[in-house]
């Protein structure tokens, strides 16, 4: 298309884009216009006077054609020109940035991407190199995480483990600062895995008047490739958790094939999932289940075996660092009336060494039974009355206990338990629960994932309905409600479970809540939520609206060895306490980095009532894999209460243990631990296809142009039409454009043809 344009208009579109149109007639412009008017008038007069066979329509058409031909001639007489700013040869510098990252080794065009560089910019004999060298002083850079000057393109090694385009462009511009720079040429596949936006870098280049010309290497879509493009794994879990991790698998060329995703823990396969691959170019979400059985920081590998003909294989696997905690998380279960749920929930989690359900059972008015308490004084006064006492627990189960039992402060405290402390709240169905327990309009109602309305039934005639419970699509794939080894087995198991009952007709769930289980029965107007949850503030809340989940253990149809009830409750309670923060928490900006990459540590610090504190002295002790210790002070960020930040850079490969500790006055804060793994990352092989949109954006926003190997031959000329550096104005005649000659010939031919047709010749 561009060549046709250049044939007709003499120059390529880019030249027109860069130039300014001007007329430079050697004669008086007024004279030319007057001449044209006279000729046009004479023409019109002669056509209006002609008689004979012609009709008036013929005379209009022929007159118009003749006038158009005259206009073309007049345009040429004006001597149109294109005014272009052109560099002075050898007076300007051109920075050439060559992508030094590993992805340049991918052989998805004529050989490896790097081979193109070697053939063109790496060879002084190549036409491109010569054309550039004739016009500019060339300065070569190799870039991955940053840009480094090199003597020539042969010194690029293609071993970089990440590409930071914006940072590299700025580094090159800084290096060439003070020199007359015509522009920068970026030769790359366009992958940028810095995670930082380019906007600032591009604005700086635009402001400095440095156009960037980008040369995109590689295919925009691989013919055959499978990639695990994302792994969503929790950063920490309890030992023994049945974990569900979401992956995103992309593929080209293997549509409909069945592949297996394996999960490995230190080389041992701990889980797998067979997947049917989606259509080409699409991503398929894949959910894998496995149980974490080893404590400590564990690197789990998610892997797909390389397939026949696959172009890139390093992107078939991804690792995730998960801290597996072997601690016992405590959940307070307050039950307002004696009922079977207490016994069977306790039994369900009894074998779980990482969960402790502390029970406060109200057996009679003002009479409580305490079970699984740690000390003689624990809960001695009944339900906690202070934040310190309640917030010691990581989860709270509210059984069948009426809202009127609590003081307004206690209700507020329960809401704060979720929103401020970040705890997990689970409300169970019962005679004294939800609307029937008088919670409508209370602070706790705000927290719950279900909407509470007026009470159903009465004390003497309570609402009661039996219902069949079924998982929603979200429930089928949720780690909470998966009660079989696979999703299919779980779905089958749900179908066979006996009916349960409820005292609480739940109308709707709140917007933003997720429903995992629903129930339907003849005494219910419509299907109602049985298990729903939502995030609320810093924590989460769930509603389990049945009152006899124990039947899933005790019912005659449930085999003795069946573990459904145990599994469900363990998963539910583990989920309730998962991600619940401690007084001090620490997170690393990235838990897997390449050695040498800085890591930012962020600590959130609360007191024992979970109020943010800004006056603490907080430090992080970093223990390198070599045993070397480093103390990093963490400073309050000021922008957020209780947030402290510091940075360290892992040098050696291996696992870095970070322990954050501190003091608030004389009070020592409980320590928090995190881990960072320093390892050579193969991020370059992910999303490694050529990113033409990004390269085009860089070119467009800076006034440059995007090329492929097929179009790069025009690069030297295009760069020379820059206003940067030392430049002169060049005039290019347009009167001799072939399009004008063809237009003239066409108009004359049209007139002749029309006359022939009408018999006027």
């Amino acid at each position, binding site marked *: 298309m561009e060549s046709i344009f250049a044939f007709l208009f003499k120059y390529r579109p880019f030249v027109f884009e860069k130039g300014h149109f001007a007329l430079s007639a050697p004669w008086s412009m007024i004279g030319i216009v007057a001449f044209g008017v006279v000729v046009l008038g004479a023409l019109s007069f002669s056509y209006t006077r002609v008689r004979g066979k012609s009709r008036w329509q013929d005379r209009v058409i022929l007159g118009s054609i003749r006038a158009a031909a005259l206009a073309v001639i007049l345009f040429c007489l004006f001597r149109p020109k294109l005014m272009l700013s052109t560099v002075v040869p050898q007076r300007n510098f051109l920075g050439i940035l060559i992508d030094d990252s590993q992805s340049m080794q991918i052989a998805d065009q004529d050989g490896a991407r790097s081979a193109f560089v070697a053939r063109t910019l790496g060879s002084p004999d190549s036409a491109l190199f010569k054309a550039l060298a004739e016009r500019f002083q060339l300065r070569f850079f190799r870039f991955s995480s940053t840009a480094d000057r090199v003597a020539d393109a042969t010194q690029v090694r293609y071993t970089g483990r990440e590409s930071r385009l914006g940072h590299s462009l700025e580094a090159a511009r800084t290096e060439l600062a003070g020199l007359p720079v015509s522009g920068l040429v970026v030769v790359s596949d366009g992958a940028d895995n810095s995670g930082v936006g380019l906007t600032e870098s591009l604005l700086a280049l635009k402001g400095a008047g440095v156009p960037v010309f980008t040369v995109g290497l590689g295919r925009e879509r691989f013919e055959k490739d499978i990639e695990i493009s994302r792994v969503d794994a929790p950063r920490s879990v309890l030992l023994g958790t049945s974990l569900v991790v979401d992956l995103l698998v992309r593929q080209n060329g293997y549509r409909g094939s069945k592949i297996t995703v394996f999960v490995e823990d230190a080389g041992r396969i701990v889980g797998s999932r067979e997947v049917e691959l989606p259509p080409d170019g699409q991503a398929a979400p894949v959910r894998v289940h496995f149980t974490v059985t080893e404590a400590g920081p564990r690197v789990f590998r998610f892997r797909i075996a390389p397939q026949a003909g696959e172009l890139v294989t390093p992107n078939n696997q991804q690792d995730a660092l998960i801290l597996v905690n072997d601690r016992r998380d405590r959940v307070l279960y307050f039950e307002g009336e*004696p009922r079977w749920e207490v*016994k069977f929930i*306790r*039994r369900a989690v009894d074998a779980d060494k990482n969960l402790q359900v502390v029970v406060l059972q109200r057996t*009679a008015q003002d009479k409580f039974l305490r079970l699984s308490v740690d000390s003689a004084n624990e809960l001695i006064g009944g339900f906690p009355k202070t934040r310190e006492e309640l917030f010691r627990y990581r989860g709270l189960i509210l059984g069948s206990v009426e809202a009127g039992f609590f003081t307004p402060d206690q209700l507020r405290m329960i809401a704060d338990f979720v929103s401020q402390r970040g705890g997990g709240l689970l409300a169970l169905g019962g005679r004294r629960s939800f609307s029937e327990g008088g919670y409508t309009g209370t602070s706790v109602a705000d927290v719950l994932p279900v909407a509470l309305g007026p009470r159903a039934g009465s004390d003497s005639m309570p609402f*009661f309905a039996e219902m069949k419970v079924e998982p929603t699509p979200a429930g089928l794939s949720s780690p909470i409600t998966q009660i079989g080894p696979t999703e299919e087995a779980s779905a089958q198991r749900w179908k066979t479970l006996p009916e349960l009952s409820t005292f609480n007709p739940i109308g709707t769930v709140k917007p933003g809540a997720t429903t995992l289980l629903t129930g339907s029965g003849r005494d219910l107007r419509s299907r109602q939520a049985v298990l729903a949850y939502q995030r609320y503030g810093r924590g989460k809340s769930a509603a389990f609206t049945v009152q006899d989940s124990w039947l899933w253990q*005790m019912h*005659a149809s449930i085999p*003795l060895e069946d573990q459904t009830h145990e599994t469900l409750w363990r998963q539910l309670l583990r989920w309730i306490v998962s991600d619940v923060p401690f007084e001090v928490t620490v997170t690393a900006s990235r838990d897997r980095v390449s050695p040498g990459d800085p890591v930012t540590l962020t600590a959130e610090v609360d007191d024992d009532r979970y109020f943010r504190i800004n006056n603490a002295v907080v430090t992080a002790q970093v223990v390198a894999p070599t045993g070397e210790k480093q103390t990093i002070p963490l400073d309050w960020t000021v922008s957020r209460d209780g947030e402290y930040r510091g940075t360290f850079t892992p040098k050696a490969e291996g696992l870095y243990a970070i322990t954050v500790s501190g003091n608030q006055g004389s009070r020592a804060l409980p320590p928090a631990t995190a881990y960072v793994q320093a390892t050579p990352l193969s991020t370059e092989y992910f999303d490694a296809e050529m990113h033409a949109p990004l390269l085009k954006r860089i070119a467009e926003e800076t006034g440059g142009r995007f090329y492929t190997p097929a179009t790069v031959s025009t690069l030297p000329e295009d760069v020379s039409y820059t206003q940067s550096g030392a430049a002169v104005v060049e005039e290019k005649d347009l009167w001799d454009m072939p399009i004008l000659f063809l237009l003239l010939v066409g108009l004359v031919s049209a007139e002749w043809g029309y006359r022939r047709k009408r018999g006027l010749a």
Partner: protein
Amino acid sequence: MTAWGRRRGWAAVRAIAALGLIVIATAQGRGYGRQREELCPGPIKIPYDGKWAFARVAFEPSSEAEYHDLKWNHDCPRAEMHFAKILKELTLLNPYMEGGAVFTLDDPDLFKYPFAYVSEPGYWTMTPQEVANARAYLLKGGFLVFDDFREYHWENFEEQLHRVLPDAKLVPLDVHNPVYQDAFFRMKSIDFQPPYGDWMPVYYGVYENNDPTRRLMVIANYNNDIGEYWEWSDTDYAPIELNNEAYKLGVNYVMYALTH
């Protein structure tokens, strides 16, 4: 002399025993049997509505049982009706108030009531299906209370229980056991006089996996009959203190079963 004292006197007289008195006593028993047979003739189904209900286990009595005496229905239904009233009054439990349910051990509906009561296990027999169900009931989380048996009844009780749980160890329980201390009432003594006879009650339990750190799933009131106290607690049959002790045992058993 109180009514209780007079009954104890009669028991002494029976111990000295004239044949005629024994016949009278037997005749009286058969009379009660006929009354029970009318009120609790066999399994009683109640609609499941989420409430706690007293479940009584019915069984085919052994051949040693007297004619017309089903054994399992002793004190039924007055005992459970009175006991439900006590539970309702003292605790926040929401019990079924119209008596109780009666199930055979092979009835699947029994599993909706994880607390069950067996009277006169000295005459307890089971079909193989009942044995299997009883085992599943206990191991899933059910709780069985055996009451109203004494002396030689033990052999049959133990034999039948071992058909259900072959490895079960019947462990004597004392007053310091959590079931008597923590569940609801903190009991000072469990050595109170049974409603009849001169035997001293002994309480036995079976722990899950025979592990004393785990829950009790069986309790046997050997040489005692707390159902008898419950049944006649609205009369002057026994001193109120003894009725109270019997109720305390029952309430503690229920609360323990509900929480352990």
